[in-house]
């Protein structure tokens, strides 16, 4: 038996070998690579010969005029996205749950989770034209044309070029992309609620609204708590791909986020060390938040990640 067990352990190690090696090279080496945040990294010299500068890059960072606005924008956009991506799918799942016509429900779901499967490049290509302000009000995109015809606005809105409007556009279009897909989880939870609870409450004289409030919502509260807790970890993720496709210099003031700043500093301006320092800041704060969220998910929802 012992030799069989030994052999079995060896097979397990062998299976994991390839995944572990690949993760080491492409995920762990970059983690060690954050040492360049403490160096004056020169690509020609590499990790070993570049000069060590201690916390110099972090001092520069704190003085960088773009950093605090980017941090603030990241938090604002991410927090509103988290709220929107929670409230709207729950509401939509409750609405769908009231539908009794099967084919209608199915068709609605099929269409609403379509945007989830399209990349931000495709959606960006669609939205840049759809939301376009146009040069004159006669060549505005469909959104502005519709709003003008309905008499809701007097002049086309610059959804993507006005720094006061841009964060709203980003938040709403993100909820638009994700809500259909996010609804799946809540809808599954809703179908798992014990039907006898509804019967019992209706015998007790509870109306539909009362039932929604005292049976349906409590029934999906655990999954709502779980999703909320797990989203804490993404509080510094405002959505790089989306903003990278949609933003322009005229909205940097309210639309530039940490990830787009890292990209411009590092890969456009080639300030590798400074950019890595911003990355380290984000990685450490995010990491702590993710750990907290895992702990909370375990404590309040009994959910273990691994």
């Amino acid at each position, binding site marked *: 038996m012992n030799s069989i067990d030994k052999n079995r352990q060896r097979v397990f190690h062998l299976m994991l070998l390839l995944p572990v090696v690949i993760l080491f090279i492409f995920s762990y080496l970059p983690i060690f690579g954050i040492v360049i945040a403490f160096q004056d990294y020169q690509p020609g010299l590499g990790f070993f010969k570049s000069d060590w500068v201690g916390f110099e890059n972090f001092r520069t960072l704190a003085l960088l005029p773009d950093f605090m606005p980017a941090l603030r924008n990241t938090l604002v956009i991410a927090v509103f996205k988290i709220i929107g991506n929670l409230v709207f799918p729950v509401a939509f799942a409750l609405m769908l749950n009231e539908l009794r016509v099967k084919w209608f429900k199915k068709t609605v779901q099929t269409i609403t989770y379509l945007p989830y499967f399209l990349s931000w490049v*495709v959606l960006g290509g669609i939205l840049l034209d759809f939301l376009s302000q146009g040069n004159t009000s006669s060549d505005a995109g469909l959104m502005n044309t519709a709003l003008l015809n309905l008499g809701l606005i007097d002049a086309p809105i610059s959804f993507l070029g006005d720094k006061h409007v841009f964060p709203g556009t980003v938040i709403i279009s993100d909820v638009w992309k994700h809500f259909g897909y996010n609804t799946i989880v809540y809808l599954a939870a809703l179908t798992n609620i014990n039907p006898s609870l509804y019967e019992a409450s209706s015998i007790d004289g509870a109306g539909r609204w009362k039932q929604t409030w005292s049976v349906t919502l409590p029934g999906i509260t655990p999954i709502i708590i779980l999703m909320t807790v797990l989203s804490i970890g993404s509080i510094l993720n405002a959505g790089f791909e989306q903003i990278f496709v949609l933003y322009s210099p005229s909205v940097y003031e309210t639309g530039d986020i940490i990830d787009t700043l890292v990209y411009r500093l590092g890969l456009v301006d080639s300030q590798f060390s400074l950019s890595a320092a911003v990355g380290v800041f984000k990685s450490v704060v995010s990491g702590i938040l993710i750990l907290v969220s895992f702990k909370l998910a375990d404590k309040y929802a009994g959910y273990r990640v691994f």
Partner: protein
Amino acid sequence: MLAKNVSASRKVFIICNAVLILLITLACLIPIVNLLARSFSSSQAIIENRVTLWPVGFNLDAYEYVMDSSEFWTAALVTVKRVLIGVPINMLLTILAAYPLSKSDGVFRARKYYSFYFVFLMVFNGGLIPTYIVVSQLGLIDSIWSLILPVAVPIFNVILIMNFFRGLPEELEESAMLDGASQWTIMWRIFLPLSKPSIATVSLFSLIMHWNAWFDGLIYSNFTTNYPLQSYLQTLVVDVQASLISGDLDSIAAAMNVNDINLKAAQIFISIIPLFAIYPFMQKYFTEGLTVGSVKG
């Protein structure tokens, strides 16, 4: 559950609810229909801003123009290549990791060290610049492998499959072991055939990830000929100044019903046709896969 004698207020609610759902659904559809209408419209109608949800001056010229565009097809070929190599690699490594990790700590004694190794990467990452430096130091810039290896082990997928394996009855494995089957045989002949729905879900996740990825193509390629389709489209979408129609083709384009707008719309639409083709499968498996693994990363 719905009683026969429905009250008037209930009826009003049902109708309002259905109308609201319909409006929300249309909001998801209209921008995409608008794109489709533009791709089939004449350039004159587009310039005059007459296209809404139905093609005006219907024609296929933009599509014909794209058919002859070597840039578009070069990029499409890179995408097909990364899907054909990347998805099988994703699946192989996901299963190889998920199987041993699905065992209990008692059966696989080193499991907790490995799971720490994987979970750590869900919490921390090196970030854009150090990853870029590693990929470029390995000489992978402009190689298809730069689009495949950095995303070769999707940890979220490993967790999905691992959870599914854990749900399978232990007796299956015990009886196979008594028959002298090795762990390889048990994984390959017993666990995999029983896990078809979740394997299908994860394959679709991986397929969509590879099909839609564009940022890696953008940063890991020095030459635009190495761009996958989505990176190529990104340059069209973001770089509004550059005309899609190159100099000597101008006259041909003018003679045809082609301009930047319907050309862009046609290319975007062609790029999402394969996703529509697999959409029925996605619907079938995603709900299943999602409810098994429960939570998105």
